[in-house]
């Protein structure tokens, strides 16, 4: 696959670099060199041992180096539970930014929202300042790969002192008939004292094999506030890698929440660089998986400056022969005194065949810190079950209530009421076995193949 991808770049280099400024081309080629050296991660690569992407790539894939869907009325083809939110909504179709009137919009408050590909032409000075500065191409093969092939994605620039009222919702849709390989690239800059929320939804409208390798770079300037919600409800042939790289400056606060409700193969990587004092980073994740679904959450928090706080809470419920991986690493550097860093990963296994690999990890070089980590793997609490039974709740209802309670700790961390409510509904439906991926989109309603994903309650 490595040679094939390198070859693919060389053959299409003109298309890929068409219209891009020179620095972008140089960045791509540098990344390609790194990719040539490092290749894709395999099961011998640290943090990838349990998540084999090589086998996910043993297919023929189509690549779209040219934007074929410049303009499209998304409302006509797509609605979803989350879509009802009062958001500024943007859509990516098969890896390309979809727009109705203009590829880039500037809001009255000065916020720029639009296509990254277009922004490379229109705002080269902003792009050059940030692009590739958070997503270290030497860190993982998939980041180098994305950087070599990146063409389009969401670009948001919030100027200083602006609180963007509506969350920006980005919906990533795949609707191609062929197996598709996508590499979206997002760049988000939140200015000093500014505030932004992004809701990132992934959906597949077809059951073809798709492989998506997303990189998002997020820059939080001094005292800014940023929240990032990732909602995944993908089909059984989808592989989804999402790499979030966040750089935090002094006084900034960050919330990320990765909600994986369905998806054949999902790996969420969150990389937080805390480069200022008094930063706060809250990193959440919830995964509800069954059948042969595989979900991997990897977190790296680098406390490079003193007096900041980070907190990780990842929870999951696994049914059938599903797999979950959690590897959380916190690095507290020598001079990062008064750091507080917490990690927690809790899992409920519903069957003997479900497996979880969890590895919370602290690496501390400072001496005046408060850090803790923990992981649990277990079943539903039999005392709580009996208590509910003793009030007349039947087996099924009692289990649903407890699973929902387990999941709700992460759902309750969602600060947007409307989003919290819709996620809450989706989680309840998921636990009742009513949420199939078809629930989410109109296109799919009359589909010939309607997969049912449900956690089998009788197996606990």
């Amino acid at each position, binding site marked *: 696959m490595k040679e094939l991808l390198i070859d693919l770049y060389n053959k299409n280099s003109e298309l890929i670099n068409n219209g891009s400024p020179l620095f972008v081309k140089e960045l791509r080629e540098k990344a390609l060199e790194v990719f040539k050296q490092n290749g894709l991660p395999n099961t011998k690569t640290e943090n990838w041992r349990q998540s084999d992407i090589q086998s996910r790539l043993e297919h023929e894939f189509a690549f779209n180096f040219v934007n074929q869907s410049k303009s499209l009325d998304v409302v006509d083809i797509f609605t979803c539970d989350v879509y009802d939110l009062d958001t500024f909504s943007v859509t990516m179709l098969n890896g390309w930014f979809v727009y109705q009137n203009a590829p880039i919009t500037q809001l009255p408050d000065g916020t720029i929202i639009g296509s990254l590909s277009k922004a490379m032409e229109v705002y080269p000075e902003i792009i050059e300042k940030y692009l590739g500065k958070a997503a270290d191409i030497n860190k993982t093969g998939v980041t180098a790969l994305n950087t070599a092939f990146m063409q389009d994605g969401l670009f948001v620039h919030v100027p200083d002192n602006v609180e963007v009222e509506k969350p920006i919702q980005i919906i990533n849709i795949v609707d191609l008939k062929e197996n598709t390989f996508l590499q979206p690239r997002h760049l988000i800059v939140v200015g000093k004292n500014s505030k932004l929320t992004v809701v990132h939804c992934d959906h597949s409208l077809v059951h073809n094999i798709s492989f998506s390798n997303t990189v998002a770079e997020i820059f939080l300037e001094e005292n800014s506030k940023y929240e990032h919600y990732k909602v995944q409800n993908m089909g059984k042939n989808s592989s989804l890698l999402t790499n979030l790289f966040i750089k935090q400056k002094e006084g900034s606060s960050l919330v990320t929440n990765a909600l994986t409700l369905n998806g054949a193969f999902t790996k969420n990587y969150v990389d937080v660089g805390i480069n200022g004092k008094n930063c706060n980073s809250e990193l959440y994740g919830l995964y509800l998986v069954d059948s042969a679904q595989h979900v991997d959450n990897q977190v790296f928090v680098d406390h490079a400056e003193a007096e900041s706080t980070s907190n990780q809470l990842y929870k999951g419920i696994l049914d059938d022969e599903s797999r979950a991986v959690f590897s959380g690493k916190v690095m507290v550097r020598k001079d990062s005194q008064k750091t507080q860093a917490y990690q927690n990963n809790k899992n409920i296994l519903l069957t003997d065949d479900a497996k979880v690999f969890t590895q919370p990890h602290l690496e501390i070089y400072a001496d005046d810190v408060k850090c803790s980590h923990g992981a649990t793997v277990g079943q539903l*609490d039999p005392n709580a079950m009996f*208590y509910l039974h*003793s*009030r*007349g*709740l039947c087996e099924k209802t*009692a289990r649903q*209530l407890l699973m929902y*309670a387990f999941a709700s*700790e992460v759902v309750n961390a969602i600060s947007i009421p409307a989003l919290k409510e819709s996620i809450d509904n989706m989680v309840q439906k998921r636990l009742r076995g009513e949420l199939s991926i078809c629930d989410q989109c109109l296109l799919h309603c009359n589909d010939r193949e309607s997969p049912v994903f449900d956690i089998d309650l009788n197996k606990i």
Partner: protein
Amino acid sequence: MLKIKDLNVSINGKQILKNFNIEVNKGEVHAIMGPNGSGKSTLAAVIAGRDIFTVDSGEILYNGKDLLDMPPDLRAREGVFLGFQYPVEIPGVSMVNFMRTAINEKRKHFGLEPLTGAEFLKLMEEKKKVVDIQAKLTNRSVNEGFSGGEKKKNEIFQMAMLEPKLAILDETDSGLDIDALKVVANGVNALKKPDNATVVITHYQRLLDYIVPDFVHVLYEGRIVKSGTKELALELEEKGYEWIKNEVK
């Protein structure tokens, strides 16, 4: 209403209840007293259907039906209620959701329509008064962050909501100060009706100053060694459990 005949119960091969017998009729309040380790809590748990215990022989009849044949949730829907000695904290399950689900499952069992939100809230407000609960329960998880007293009040509140036919109260007085004890006891008394029965399990006589029993039984080493009226509780308080132990020898 409740008839237990020659009940033998063990856990991990250790026998706890030995040829235990009791009969409780409608409208009666029974107190079961006994020293630590005599099998009081085991009795309560077995009636409610806790599966960690093994019933080796004997039967429990509830209104003529074999209780041991029913899963715990069915017993509850049929009107058996256990007030827990240690109520379980369930983070993330709100009191409102919990109670509404419990009530509607019970109504469904009897072929009744579920309560509407408004009907339910009205009922809840009414029943909160029984045990003097001021707090809003809407945003609180079941027993989470409740003080010892609040947890016990919450048990009686649930009892008020579910209107059981047979309530087994396991050491409801433990860990309560005198004010909370009065509130809890008044709650139990207020819920007493001619067609229901209550079994109060306690270590101390103190609770029985407020919940006056029709019968008092002394449980020792897994069986009832003495039965009487409320005077027996007073005698027990005066002479201590050593008296019973010596008598049994």
